[in-house]
């Protein structure tokens, strides 16, 4: 365990864990759009910047992305200096130029007092901030079905050749964790559609309610050695069946002379 100072208060941290994790634990409200504990930090959104210094740095300070900066003993961290607030404002201002209609960005910007961008708005607004969280999560899940394509102005997240991605299993991990809800999907009856590909959702045998996508279940049963029929029951049916099974055993063991 090491000690750091956050906005004047001492806090304990593990050596090497990222500052953002420490800040979150200390309940410091710091915006961070591209961070997720399931994947390696990436430093794309730049909103989690903090100011750091140390006693022995002779007044020298630095601004770093807290999601990418490992905690070290004696680090003195400021999270809301005027400079930092100005910096976050500028970044949010830029985001608003790209994503003027994105509620998540609007809200965050409003918190920092930016209600309208001072830059020229892009002609084709887009909810995606290119933080790459979806592709990193998809890689982490082991599917790598989507990736960032093109460079510069034309950069976007897409499946290979922009066709229905063959490696996608319809798990929704990308869509559910996208900080701006850019990735759209629909679940209609037992059909899920995402990235232009349709998936059949397995049915709970008792109620017919959808569980997970067939491709996802097949992947899990093949690579993780889980019986595929487990996925053909939802959690409620599993519990009901468990109760009936244990009930039977209970009655049986009462009737059998001990």
């Amino acid at each position, binding site marked *: 365990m090491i000690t750091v100072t956050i906005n004047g208060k001492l806090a304990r941290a593990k050596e090497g864990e990222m500052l953002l994790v420490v800040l979150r634990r200390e309940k410091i409200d710091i915006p961070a759009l591209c961070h997720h504990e*399931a994947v390696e930090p990436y430093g794309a959104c730049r909103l989690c910047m903090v100011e750091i210094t140390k006693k022995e740095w002779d007044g020298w300070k630095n601004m770093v992305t807290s999601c990418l900066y490992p905690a070290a003993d004696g680090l003195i961290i400021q999270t809301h200096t005027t400079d930092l607030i100005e910096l976050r404002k500028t970044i949010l201002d830029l985001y608003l130029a790209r994503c003027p209609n994105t509620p998540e960005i609007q809200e965050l910007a409003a918190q920092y007092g930016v209600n309208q961008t001072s830059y020229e708005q892009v002609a084709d607004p887009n909810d995606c901030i290119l933080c790459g969280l979806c592709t990193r*999560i998809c890689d982490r899940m082991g599917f790598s079905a989507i990736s960032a394509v093109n460079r510069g102005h034309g950069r976007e997240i897409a499946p290979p050749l922009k066709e229905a991605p063959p490696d996608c299993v319809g798990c929704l991990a990308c869509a559910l964790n996208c900080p701006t809800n850019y990735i759209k999907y629909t679940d209609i009856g037992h059909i899920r559609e995402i990235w232009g590909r349709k998936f059949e959702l397995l049915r709970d045998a008792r109620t017919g309610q959808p569980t997970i996508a067939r491709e*996802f279940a097949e992947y899990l049963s093949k690579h993780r050695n889980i019986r595929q029929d487990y996925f053909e029951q939802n*959690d409620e049916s599993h519990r009901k069946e468990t109760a009936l099974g244990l*009930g039977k055993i209970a009655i049986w063991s009462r009737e059998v002379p001990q």
Partner: protein
Amino acid sequence: MNSRFIVTPILCTGCRTCELACSFTHAKDGKVGRSRIYPLDGGFKDLYVPVVCLQCEDPACVKSCLVDAIYFNENTGAYEINTEICVRCMACVAACPFGCSLFDTQQNLVIKCDLCGGDPVCAHFCPTKALTYKPIAI
């Protein structure tokens, strides 16, 4: 940590006190949580079974989690979900053959029994001792 839930359905009256105890214990932001324990119909007259995570060996939830969000807590003997790591893919919810990995719609989180840090509150509240949590010899 060789304690286990001991479930004795014959003693369970289906009073659902364990469920209440769980909900209150896992309350957050002033709202009761979703219970991790379910006293359910055991299929015979007046027979109920409290269904709760039994902290399996080699559990399906852990096997199904592709981002390793579920891990064994050595101190408590519980498999816990790190909700910061969880990507809400629902694999574990569908995979657990006992239905003890749950989706909490209110909090938008996947949850399971965490043994309340090693001393499950539900067991303390069971009035008939149908549910106890005791050290057992393995």
